[in-house]
């Protein structure tokens, strides 16, 4: 298949050899599991259980609120120890409502949904409903409810389901191992999703630095004529949805639009595997593979962990720290976020836990910008980071937006390449957040204004009515006298 180049991009040190050849190991059941009500983009789920309730594995413990929301399930059987607020696995460290489960050790599945015998004979709605019921979100890190993405087949004509096996972030090997050890499940899940989307073609894109995964997936997809496994060049950010679509189809997703507008829907390999389990076995999403790596860790591994296991459980399973880590990161080093501590849980979108040393991070205090232009040369989105950052530094957020700030995918390549170590993408994340906050405040302000005007009108109306009543009363009295007389 003909591939197309993407602009810019970087080649960081991948360090995938730390876990690339480690088979997936299952984490032994920890003593507590913490399931946050929001592990996805959208509205938090609504809690259904109370402290003291007994739950079985796979039972729905929080229900989705509306379409852009996701069910949460008990990852194992046990007792609800508490429904409380704990730190979210989020750089802010803010608390969020979380269900705490104490496993009983039996790990017994409860009543599950019926396995769908022939997914290709049922209609798309059935599959979407099953995916929604099983709480599946995008497992590449974004956490977008997958059922909503599968619904895109209604409004758009989808030509291609693109399965994202690129895994372009350094260190992460969870998708690689899933493809190597569970290729058939991934392929099956992909075919089911393509059927739900009505997509005639499936392309599995895998970066060239994963030769074994390429071989195994190609063999597994042999039998299916509408599936093609493609090797894409190893470059960061090849795994970005829009850039992968460009590489495969040669078309750029228009700004502010979805890849679905080009007839392409992108899903992660782990998501495909989860769909397979949901449809074929009725299993909801209760576990995922996490790459626990970094040179500060004693034994890096790929761990299949139940949702809700804490980061400290996983680190202990990997032998603990060999040295004090400089930073603890969730996800990959490029787009991942700092963890506020180790007591936070693994959620559905946690692809990696990294304990990084100072040498690996190679950070230093920022120097003045020397306008070298490296950031411009490597920006995969065709932006000019040096200019945008200068506007943000001077609080000209609207100017930054005009230069294309909202088109930035925050891949972090510009911060990586900057010889002055200026935290460019931090400026952009700040500015995007600040612009969103300003927009929210503006909308609130407008609504307030409308309400104030409405109130003023109401008060006027009342006053006018009262004045009209006063002038009418004397007339009525005169009329009564006349009538009476």
């Amino acid at each position, binding site marked *: 298949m003909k591939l197309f180049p993407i602009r810019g991009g970087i080649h960081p040190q991948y360090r995938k050899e730390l876990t690339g050849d480690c088979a997936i190991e299952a984490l032994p059941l920890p003593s507590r599991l913490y399931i946050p009500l929001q592990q996805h983009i959208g509205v938090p789920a609504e809690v259904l259980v109370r402290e003291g309730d007994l739950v079985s594995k796979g039972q729905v413990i929080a229900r989705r609120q509306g379409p852009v929301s996701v069910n949460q399930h008990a990852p194992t059987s046990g007792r609800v120890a508490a429904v409380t607020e704990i730190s979210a696995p989020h750089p802010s*460290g803010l608390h969020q409502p979380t269900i705490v489960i104490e496993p009983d050790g039996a790990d017994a599945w409860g009543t599950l949904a019926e396995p769908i015998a022939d997914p290709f004979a049922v209609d798309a709605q059935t599959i979407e409903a099953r995916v929604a019921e099983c709480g599946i979100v995008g497992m590449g890190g974004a956490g977008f409810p997958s059922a909503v993405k599968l619904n895109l087949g209604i409004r758009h004509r989808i030509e291609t389901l693109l399965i994202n096996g690129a895994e372009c972030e350094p260190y992460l090997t969870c998708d690689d191992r899933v493809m190597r050890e569970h290729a058939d499940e991934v392929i099956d899940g992909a075919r089911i999703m393509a059927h739900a989307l009505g997509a005639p073609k499936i392309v599995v894109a895998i970066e060239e630095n994963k030769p074994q995964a390429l071989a195994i997936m190609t063999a597994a997809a042999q039998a299916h004529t509408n599936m093609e496994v493609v090797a894409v060049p190893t470059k960061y950010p090849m795994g970005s949805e829009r850039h992968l679509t460009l590489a495969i189809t040669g078309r750029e997703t*228009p700004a502010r639009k979805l890849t679905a507008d080009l007839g392409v829907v992108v899903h992660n390999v782990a998501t495909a595997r989860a769909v397979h389990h949901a449809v074929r076995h009725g299993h909801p999403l209760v576990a995922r593979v996490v790459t626990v790596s970094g040179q500060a860790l004693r034994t890096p591994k790929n761990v299949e962990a139940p949702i809700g296991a804490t980061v400290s459980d996983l680190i202990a399973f990997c032998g603990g720290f060999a040295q004090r880590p400089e*930073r603890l990161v969730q996800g990959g080093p490029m787009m991942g976020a700092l963890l506020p501590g180790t007591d936070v849980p693994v959620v559905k979108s946690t692809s990696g836990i990294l304990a990084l040393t100072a040498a690996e991070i190679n950070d230093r205090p920022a120097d003045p*910008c020397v306008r070298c232009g490296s950031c411009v040369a490597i920006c995969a989105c*065709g932006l*000019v980071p040096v200019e945008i950052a200068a506007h943000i530094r001077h609080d000209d957020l609207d100017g930054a937006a005009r230069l294309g700030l909202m088109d930035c995918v925050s891949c*972090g390549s510009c911060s990586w390449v*900057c010889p002055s170590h200026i935290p460019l993408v931090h400026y952009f994340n700040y500015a995007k957040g600040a612009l969103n906050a300003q927009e929210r405040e503006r909308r609130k302000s407008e609504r307030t204004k409308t309400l104030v005007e409405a109130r003023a009108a109401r008060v006027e109306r009342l006053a006018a009515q009262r004045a009209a009543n006063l002038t009418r009363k004397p007339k009525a009295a005169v009329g009564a006298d006349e009538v009476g007389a």
Partner: protein
Amino acid sequence: MIGESATRSGPFAHTANTVQRTMFMVLLALTPATLFNLYLFGWPAILLFAVTVGACVVAEAACLVLAGKPVSATLSDGSAILTGWLLAMTLPPWAPWWIGVLGAMFAMPLAKHAFGGLGQNLFNPAMVARVALLVSFPVVMTAWVAPHPLFTTGSPTLNEAMTITFAGETPDGVTAATALGYVKTELSRGVPVSESLQVYGRSSVLTYAPDLMDLATGFKPGSLGETSAGLILLGGIFLLWRRVITWHIPVMMIGTLFVMGTLFNAFDPTRFAPGFFHILSGSAILGAFFIATDYVTSPVTHKGQLVFGFGVGLLTWVIRTFAGYPEGMAFAVLLMNSLTPIIDQYTRPRMFGRTRKGDPLPVEGQQ
């Protein structure tokens, strides 16, 4: 300490490249040519070089102290040394010490720190200094000498060099003209370019090879940066290989200079010097690889750099051919520096998913 972690966003990986490393690479690339030329011109050149670089560093330190900025952290990025080095490369090698010091005064406080320090200056500091000196002291700045290699007869000893540099007493009879200067002066006297090139190079018009060898290897009068174009070119190729600079500015500048020279020489060989002569004489190669490619004062986009390189090459040729000064590179660079912001504005890359104008791309063919 929950709130603390919010202070740092990703990414948590960085390239090994730093500003210091880049500066060091540039200095490394300049070293062979500099050492050779210091050898060529002897002790006075070495003294002047030391004075110029030293004065730049001292001037920068003084500016930092006055501005209340951290001194050692900023000095260690090597940019003051580089500016001084490049300035010294463009001065007459036997110039008196106060030329170097004054040059440093022009370069550091005026052209760099008055604008805000590293990364903020609009004009190339070394070129600002050179031009200011040239305009203020035209006689001293055009007093070129022929090479007097170290340890050969005729080369000044260290003591004699001290007199030359610090007392400003140039020995009689050592001044010589650079190739560009000679050609221009002869042209104003009515001697055709082709003839003066012959006389200067002592070879036939058609076989420029010995000429070029002289020009390329450097046994001719000029500044430290002019004389051995070959070694400077090697340094430039080193920079390209290490990805410190990209090909856009050097290729465009040399290319434009060469094309203009060749075209007009074909049109009228008596008035216009040929292409090879232009690119091998003066500080064309130094300018193309080391001066015009200065990060701070050149455009950030590749397209912009092509325009910039073209402009520098064109202006250098125009000034050399039509204007009063024999060498136009410094002026050309300064003029294009002033255009860098507007070049940047009009050569922004096309944003992903948008047209050149900035509107979202149309979605064709899909619902």
